[in-house]
């Protein structure tokens, strides 16, 4: 391969913003000899380079594929708007970063789908690659387009664009899938035959092999495989031993500053907490920890191989990792010698975490983060967020004593059963935290005289495979009203001057809700919206709400059907044929308990019988502890 060859001309590279996004050549990027490669896999994150390069999942799979003989995995991201325009005008096919070769010449295009608002970017990538947008229009020479990631737990709105979805964790079945592909290539390739056979591999969902019929009211009447040998349900794939699977010891090091510019240490998968709004908390069950000695070794090896100046722990709830103190002590000692920063997201605020944080960050510059998600204890019980006011105030007290003066609080508006009292609770909680500061810190010790509390609210969007998957989502007007009411309540507080309030836009939350619980009929909407010029919908400056609304109407659908409609418990949901490990009975039980304001203990205290024990490992088979703080 000629390392100097670039897909884009000098003229283009000199004209566009941040050409470093498109030239590859990063340290640790993998270049293979094409004469020794028989399967070429393009791995795509359908958003701009800086976002895509920050994603751990791709780095894991990139490492896994490139360890396989004869397989060369390369990366591709969404070209930014400026380059997009040039590529369309000049008919330049989208290319992979490493070889700079067109994606259309690859065997596979794998797309990780992390959020709903990137669906139109998937079409952008296919379109620029000159691959037919619809699976049914592709022929034997087109790459197999395969999707993965959290959004594929309800892939129905994008089912028409994909040949295949891989449901679950990528570490387990790709070797099998590629072996099957090689066999079919050798024996004369026929796309349909290959996909039919691929559907027999656990975790593989081939949308074209299933028929959906609808009732007159738009709900699903039946969802069924078109052939006897195609499975009725697809069970997600899970890698049970996290300590002996793939992990990238040599992650690609970008030249540009990207969002996640550090060594990422995934300490565990899954979360014991069971917050009822949280999709990740259900999808990644059962909770599995990585061995602490393995993690120590990984951290040092990855720091050495990348030269990064920061290491970050990654998990849904780091405080629940059983060996956290041991791991952090080790990292502090080793990193201190090397001038390496440690970043500790998702820690619960308590004496231990405050002590640790005071060692690894500048208290004056950093802020504390609480995520109560709801303002009242009643609503926190409904959503099963096991964080009490007492715990928050105690944590804040300790933090103020320790010198912190900035507190961030995250809430969601529009969760099931929410009343004005619950919203007022948000304001009151903020006020109490401010009062705690003034009580804790004597006047003469106050830096700048005050405390800064930033309360942020997002709008709740019900997601598949959560206990709230049946819940009606608020309408845009309701959302906006709630935000205004929150602002009003905050302005009425005694300490309102110490509280800053931010809220997200409501428009995109409505559309996220449509897509999250959508069905196959939405593919037409997404396609049309894209053809009208919409993509980068996750970037508020490019999101065109009106175009989405009018297109939904053109297709004879309504947003309300997907969002604010109350679903009955016996309705066939578009994602029912996917088995995410947690049973529908468990989700129904949790939905009932939510309505009765009853909490469920976390996995460490008591098993709630979610169904994930069938995978035969993780937390489900560990001893329970007697109680929890």
């Amino acid at each position, binding site marked *: 391969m000629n*390392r*100097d060859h*670039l897909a884009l001309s*000098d*003229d283009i*590279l*000199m*004209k566009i913003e941040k*050409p*470093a996004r498109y*030239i*590859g*050549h*990063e*340290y640790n990027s993998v270049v293979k000899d094409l004469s020794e490669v028989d399967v070429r896999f393009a791995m795509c994150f359908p958003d701009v380079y800086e976002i895509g390069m920050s994603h751990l999942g791709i780095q894991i799979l990139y490492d896994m594929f490139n360890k396989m003989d004869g397989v060369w995995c390369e990366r591709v991201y969404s070209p930014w708007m400026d380059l997009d325009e040039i590529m369309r005008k000049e008919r330049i096919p989208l290319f992979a970063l490493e070889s700079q070769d067109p994606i259309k010449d690859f065997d596979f295009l794998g797309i990780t789908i992390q959020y709903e608002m990137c669906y139109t970017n998937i079409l952008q990538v296919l379109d620029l690659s000159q691959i037919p947008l619809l699976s049914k229009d592709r022929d034997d020479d087109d790459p197999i387009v395969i999707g993965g990631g959290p959004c594929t737990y309800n892939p129905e709105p994008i089912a028409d664009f994909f040949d295949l979805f891989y449901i679950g964790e990528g570490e387990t079945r790709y070797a099998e899938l590629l072996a099957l592909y090689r066999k079919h290539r050798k024996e004369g390739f026929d796309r349909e035959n290959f996909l039919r056979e691929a559907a027999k591999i656990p975790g593989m969902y081939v949308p074209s092999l299933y028929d959906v019929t609808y009732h007159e009211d738009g709900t699903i009447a039946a969802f069924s495989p078109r052939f006897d040998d195609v499975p009725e349900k697809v069970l997600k794939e899970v890698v049970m031993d996290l300590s002996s699977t793939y992990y990238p010891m040599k992650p690609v*090091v970008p*030249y*540009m*500053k990207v969002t996640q510019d550090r060594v990422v240490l995934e300490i565990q998968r899954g979360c014991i907490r069971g917050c009822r709004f949280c999709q990740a908390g259900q999808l990644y069950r059962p909770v599995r920890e990585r061995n602490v000695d393995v993690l120590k070794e990984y951290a040092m090896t990855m*720091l*050495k*191989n*990348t*030269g*990064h*100046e920061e290491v970050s722990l990654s998990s849904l709830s780091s405080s629940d990792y059983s060996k956290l103190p041991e791991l952090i002590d080790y990292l502090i000692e080793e990193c201190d010698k*090397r*001038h390496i*920063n440690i970043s500790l997201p998702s820690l619960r605020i308590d004496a231990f975490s405050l002590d640790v944080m005071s060692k690894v960050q*500048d208290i004056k*510059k950093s802020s504390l983060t609480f995520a109560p998600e709801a303002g009242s204890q009643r609503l926190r019980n409904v959503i099963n967020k096991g964080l009490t006011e007492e715990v928050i105030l105690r944590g804040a007290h300790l933090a103020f004593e320790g010198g912190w003066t900035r507190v961030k609080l995250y809430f969601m508006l529009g969760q099931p059963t929410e009343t004005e009292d619950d919203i007022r609770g948000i304001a009151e909680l903020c006020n109490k935290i401010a009062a705690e500061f003034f009580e804790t810190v004597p006047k003469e010790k106050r830096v700048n005289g005050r405390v800064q509390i930033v309360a942020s609210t997002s709008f709740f969007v019900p997601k598949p495979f959560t206990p709230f998957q049946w819940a009606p989502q608020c309408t845009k007007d309701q959302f906006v009203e709630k935000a205004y009411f929150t602002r009003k309540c905050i302005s009425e507080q005694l300490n309102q001057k110490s509280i800053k309030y931010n809220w997200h836009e409501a428009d995109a939350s409505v559309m996220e809700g449509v897509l999250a619980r959508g069905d196959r009929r939405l593919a037409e909407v997404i396609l049309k919206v894209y053809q009208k010029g919409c993509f980068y919908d996750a970037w508020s400056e490019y999101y065109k709400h009106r175009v989405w609304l009018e297109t939904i109407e053109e297709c004879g659908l309504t947003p309300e059907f997907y969002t604010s409609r109350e679903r009955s418990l016996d309705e066939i949901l578009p994602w029912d044929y996917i088995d995410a490990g947690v049973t529908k009975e468990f989700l129904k039980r949790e939905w009932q308990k939510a309505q009765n304001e009853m909490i469920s203990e976390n996995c460490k205290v008591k098993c709630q019988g979610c169904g994930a024990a069938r995978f035969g490992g993780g937390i489900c088979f560990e001893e329970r502890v007697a109680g929890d703080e």
Partner: protein
Amino acid sequence: MSDNMRLRVRFEKTGAIRYIGHLDVMRFFQKCLRRAEIDVAFTGGFSPHMIMTFAQPLSVGLESHGEYMDIEVHSVTDSQDMLERMNAASVPEIKIVSVKRLPENAGNAMASVAAAKYLVSFREGRTPALFKEDPARVNEAISEFLSKETIPYVKEGKKGTREVDLRPGIFEFFVKEDQSLEMLLEASSGDNVKPAQVLDALLALHDDSLSENALQISRLDTYTRKVSVDGILGELLSMDEVGEIF
């Protein structure tokens, strides 16, 4: 100050990496030096950073064979070993050419830059009429250009335009046999002269101008000035010649 030593690292930046901006090259070296386990000194404070300075930022799109970075280190092995370790931790397009120890009185890379030498050629189809003539004729035109006492030029900066005189900043400028141009230009931070500015000024005299992205530019080396014992600046000297192999 401690017993820290200052090293001058000369490197090349070629191929696809010419599209990496200066800030990203700095970030690259911060990581590269860690990978190479060079014992770099850090500043104090809560967010310590490596003590390093770069001679002269290279514009995006240019290649260079004479880039310089000074670093402060606590300990060294020998030049060759450090060079090899850094190259093993680098990419082929960023190649370390030499690692030398700076004398104590040497100015740092950024402050002591005086000039840079460039090799310039025109992209296919973008050669102005003047440069299509034979090298002798072109050199005549250049001589005429350089014989002017002043060469006024309007620089466009972030804060608007300002008129400068390019003439004192052009030290050498001629056409080579293969029709490429070599220029030795002022490069100190306030008075930096760019090859495109010189060509613009020359072509303006011939009622011509450069077309967009017409030039392919490679920096050949960066220079400082000899400093006499009493501090008087003297002749140009490659920045590489200030340090010594160890």
